[in-house]
Every structure is written in C-alpha cells, then in structure tokens.
C-alpha cells in the first residue's frame, strides 16, 4: 500500500515535472531563434503525445524553444527556407495507423514561422500522400508524396501546390536536388531505383505536345531498398544508402549512371549524408546505432563511431563541416559528432523520438 502510493506520487511528480519542463520550454516569453540553430522534429509514442519542432542552440547544446505541431500525423523531416524565416515539416501517417482500411488519412506540411516560433498552417497534401523527403530551392518547397508516388511543389508565397509530377517506380522517399532544381533525384525504396527528373516548367520547355520532355524521367537501378540519398556539394555525385543489401550506390549526376557500388558491413543503412565540404560521407546504421564515416574521394571507410544512438533518423552538419548532428529516434537525443577528431563529442537531450534535423543560420 505504501509502495503503491509512493509510486503514484512519483508518477504524479514526474508528470508535473514533465509538464513544467515542457511549458518552460514553450512558454519562455520573447524567445527568439538563435543563430545558428538546430531544428529538430519529434513525436511521442502515442498519437496524442506532444509533438513538434524543437529548437536547439548548437553552441550551448540546449533546447531553447519548442513549437508544437498541430497537423494530424507524425512529424518527420524538416527543412528551412533559404532566408531562415520558415521551417517546413513533413507530417505523415504509416499504413499501420489505418485501423479501418477504407479510412482516408491526409498528409501535411506544417509551416512554422521561425521568427514568431509558431506553426502558421498545415498544408494538406491529400489522402494517402505520406510525405517524406523535403528540399527547399528557388523559393519553393519540393516534397515527395510516397503514398501517391509524386513529387509536389509548394509555393509558400501563394500558399498553393503549383506543380506535381508522377514518378515511375514505387516508394519514392527521400530526395537530393541540384541547387537550381534542374535535376531531382528520388530514392525509391520499393522498386530499387533512383528516379531522376526535372520540373517541366523549369526550363521554359513545357507542355504535353512537345515530343521531347525536359522532365522526362530516367530510372537508375541501384542497390536494394535505396532510402537515404545525398548530393555532393559540387553536384557531381549522388550517393544512396541501400537499406536491404547494405550497399552505397554512387551515381554520376551528368551521365545518370551508377559509377560505383560499395558493400558496407552494416545492418540497416538508413541514411547517407555528404558533408558541406564534400570530403566525407556519413552513413547511419539504424539497427546498431553506429555511424560509418567514408572518405568521399577515396571512397573507403575511415572510421566507425559506436553508440551514436539507436534508430538513427537524420543527419545535419555545421556549414564548416566540423560537426555532425545525428538524431537517435529511440534514445531521445541528437548526437554531436566532431568530424575533425572523428569522435562522439556530446549529446543534446531532446523530447522523445526525435526524427528530422536541420541547421539554420539567419545571420
């Protein structure tokens, strides 16, 4: 009996403490976005759990603000607009969320005002859209809608989806895009190909009556289960992490062909990210929590860092390539990796289940 009430008390105390912590982070009056800042999406275990976008100061390693997300579903990945004023979060449902098979569940983009640290709106992407990969370029947001096998483009100025394009293949998940949006590479997890395409209104040559379509898409066979995808900063190579066979596929951006395949010793190669200086390639193993670091020009593994965190979901970099920030979905932290020393430096504690991470610099 005493034990029981003690337990109850502890649970209540814990609850109050958690609530206080949560509100302390959200309610800080006059909180501003630090610059630079890390944007981290998170969601709790249950649909009703708190979910949102946390803002961390990479200089202090502390969460300084928390912006709740109201769009229905699980917040996934995040990107910021070029001016750092807006953040966009893909919010999706998984198939196992469908209790009633005929139920229609929308996908959303949560648009977050980073100056006011407030969610501005939920952009509806349509039933079964399952949005994932995001890229911001030319003032517009590019989104993969995996459930519809589409690329969609959202214009934040007009609050409209102004372009869509169907993709061949299935499971169009994450994207790597040239800065001028002249080529979009999409990793298709189900059909084991990378689709490369171009918006047809991008080069001025548009319309169904021209026999050559600049947006004509090509499918590039890669390893099995390509999911993570990243473009080198010189825009010469695209690397995919192939989840089901543990390979890295290196695609030449001009010829649109695989030029090299690397077999890794890895259990679940979920993400690949190339550093901003183009020298290193990071691969996250979701199953073991290891981070594999490859030398890009030499194309070989130079270091394997253990205990980065289980269920790695995303990787961001400081612009000087000195640090990597890795979300560990199952361990509620973002691991900070020193890329000069090639070692785990620290951990930023986050709300439960961090997913996407992005670096934003407004100065």
């Amino acid at each position: 009996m005493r034990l029981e009430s003690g337990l109850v008390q502890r649970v209540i105390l814990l609850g109050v403490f958690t609530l206080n912590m949560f509100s302390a982070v959200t309610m800080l009056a006059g909180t501003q976005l630090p610059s630079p800042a890390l944007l981290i999406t998170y969601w709790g275990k249950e649909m009703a759990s708190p979910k949102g976008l946390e803002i961390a100061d990479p200089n202090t390693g502390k969460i300084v603000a928390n912006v709740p997300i109201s769009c229905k579903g699980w917040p996934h990945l995040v990107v910021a607009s070029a001016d750092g004023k807006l953040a966009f979060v893909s919010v999706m449902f998984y198939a196992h969320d469908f209790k009633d098979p005929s139920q229609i569940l929308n996908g959303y983009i949560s648009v977050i005002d980073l100056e006011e640290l407030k969610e501005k709106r939920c952009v509806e992407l349509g039933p079964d859209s399952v949005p994932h990969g995001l890229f911001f370029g030319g003032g517009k947001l590019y989104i993969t809608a995996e459930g519809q096998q589409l690329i969609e483009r959202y214009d934040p100025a007009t609050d409209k989806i102004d372009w869509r394009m169907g993709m061949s293949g299935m499971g169009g998940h994450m994207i790597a895009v040239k800065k001028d949006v002249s080529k979009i590479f999409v990793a298709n997890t189900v059909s084991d190909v990378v689709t490369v395409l171009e918006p047809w209104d991008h080069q001025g040559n548009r319309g169904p009556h021209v026999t050559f379509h600049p947006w004509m898409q090509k499918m590039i066979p890669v390893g099995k289960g390509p999911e993570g995808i990243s473009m080198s900063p010189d825009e010469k190579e695209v690397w995919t992490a192939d989840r089901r066979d543990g390979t890295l596929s290196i695609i030449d951006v001009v010829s649109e062909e695989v030029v090299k395949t690397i077999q890794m010793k890895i259990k679940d190669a979920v993400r690949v990210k190339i550093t901003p200086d183009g020298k290193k390639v990071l691969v996250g193993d979701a199953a073991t929590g290891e981070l594999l670091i490859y030398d890009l020009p030499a194309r070989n593994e130079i270091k394997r860092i253990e205990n980065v965190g289980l269920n790695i979901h995303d990787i961001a970099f400081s612009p000087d390539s000195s640090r990597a920030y890795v979300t560990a979905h199952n361990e509620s932290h973002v691991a900070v990796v020193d890329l000069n020393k090639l070692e785990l430096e620290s951990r930023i504690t986050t709300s439960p289940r961090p997913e996407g991470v992005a670096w934003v610099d407004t100065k």
Partner: protein
Amino acid sequence: MALETSFIRRVVLLSAFASAAMMTMPAAAQVPSPALLIACWGNGAGSLQIADPAMMKVVVSVPLGSLRPHGIAVSPNGKVAYVTLGDVAMGQRAGASDEIPEDYISVIDLVARKELRRVVIGPGSWPFSIVLVRGKLYYTAEGYGLVGRYDPVRNQIDQMIGTGQIRSHSLAVSKDGEHIFIANGYSDNVSTIGLWDVPASQRVPGLAHLDTDLIPRWFASTIPVGHEPEGIALSPDDKEAWVLGRGDGSLSIIDVATNKILRTLDLKMKEPFRLAFSADGKRVLIVSHRDTNVLMFDAVARKEIKRIHIGSEIVYQGIIAPDGSHAFVSVVGDDRVAVIDMNTLEVTGSISTSAQPAAMAWAASDRM
C-alpha cells in the same frame, strides 16, 4: 398607326431576341434521353452541346469559356456531366515566366443546363480522360504524369497516383474500380494500376517481404504496347483492354486478368485515334485522326467488318448508341457529327455542331 408600328417593332424585336436565345438555350427544350453530349473546342470558346440523336440536332449548348473541353463523364442518372478543361496554349508556351493557368474538371448540371462548379486540378496539370466508376471520377492529369480520383459527394480529390510515364493521356477503368489502364503516348506503354482499400502488402503476395508500413494501397506496372498509344477501351465484360498505336497503326489487346498482351494486330490505318465497344461487346468502332474512313471491327473474331467513308480527316471520336442502332463520329475539321446506321454500316446523316466537335458521351436517365 404609330401604335401599330411600335407594336410590330416590338414583336420583331421580341422574336429576334427569342431566336437569339433559342440558339443557345431554348427555354422549352428538354434534355433528351438518351442525349448525345458533344464537347466542342469552338476555336477558343468551348462548350458542351447536348444533342438529340433521334432528331439529329443540337438542342442545348452550355458555354465553357476559353479552356479546351477534353473528356466527358456522366452521372448514372444522366443529370450531371463532368468535363475536363485544359489550357489550350500549353504546348505553345515557351517562356518560363509565363503564368500557367489552372486546369479544372467542370461540373455541369444537364437539367439546369449550366456549370455548377469547377474542381481545381492544378496549373499545367492538363487533365484529359475522365471516367466515372462506382460514384468516383478517375482522370488523367497528363501535365503531372498522374491519375487522380475525384469524389463528387465529398467534393474532394481522394486519390492521386503518379504514373511517371510521358503523356499519360487516355484512361480505362474496370467497373469494380480495381483495374486502371492508362495509355502513355510518348512512353509506348500502358500503365496498369491495381487499386484497393487494403495495404498492397496484404493483397500482393510478392510484396509481403517489404516494409509494410510504407507501401501504398495500390500497385503499378507498365505493359509495352505499340508506338504512341492513344485510344484505350475496356471490353464491356472488363476482360480485355484494347489499345490503339497512333504511331504505328497497331491494335494491342491486353488480358486484364494477367496484364499480358493477348494479341497485336496491324489495323492498316493511319493514326488510329479512339475506339468504342458496342454495349453487347460484339463490335468496336475505330476512328483515325488522319484517315477519311472509320473502321467497324468484329470484337470476337478480331477482324475488320467494314471501312466506312466519312469524307473528312481529323475525326476525333466515335461512339455507339446504347441500343446499338447507330454510331456517331465527331469530325473536328467539319463542325459536324456523322451518323452511321449500324445495320447498313452507311453514313445516314449528320448533326451540325459548334466549331471543332471532339469528345462525346451518352447521358441517359435511370429509366433507360
């Protein structure tokens, strides 16, 4: 005297007014059943015309504005038509700075003879074919390389699936809504999409090993067919999909159960464009964009019955009346719809229309 003149003037004016009104919307005109709906491009002033097939004349015209009306679908009670509207200048647009207008599905009340609303499909989406199956409208958006589904009751697009193919143009959907076929004009293939209301992993045994969380509720693949596939139609029993190769004059017959090509035939026809089955599934009417003849085909024996001289090129579509008595062929270049007697297989008359008659459909009330 003065009074009389004024009276006569008024009568003349009134009758002039009345006849002007009659041209577009005669007050007393009833929508016939079945009615033949004809989408006219009208050189930039599009309309949906409602013709009485027995009287062989257009009785009502619903103006649709500057966008080009493409495909037509009709509600089972014959009261509402859905017409895809696309920007005509799409192909000619050169500058990236040109603003791309919205394209739509127009919802038209055939009884009130007016447009009710427009469903936004997206700028440059170029919606084309439209088919109504089990209360939902399936459409191709060629500019976006996708097939979409619009629920008119919820007034909501409830599904979109990318084909990733070039010129996803014509569409055929089985009556149960589970098989979708799309002719992809510049990819020389047909997309086949199985759509269902349970996750694909539970439906397709071959996908069971995959991450079930991420699999959408459909499965798509492609079937290579002849060059520049254009017209596509399902046999009334939904067992075969017939596809015309506009570029090579071919006819490919796909087995719906296996998604395999059963047969490929050379139609010996320039640019076969559209085809239509008779309601009993015995005959198929094939029209060409560059031939002065249309082709009546025996669907069972899979051979030509007769080539019927229409006298004009640039035929757009041919359809067969629900009772099988007549066929109707829209002649874009001649502003008319030619009427063919299905017994004699001769042209027996024609319906004058607005400029550039193109897609056609039947609207029949429930009583039919």
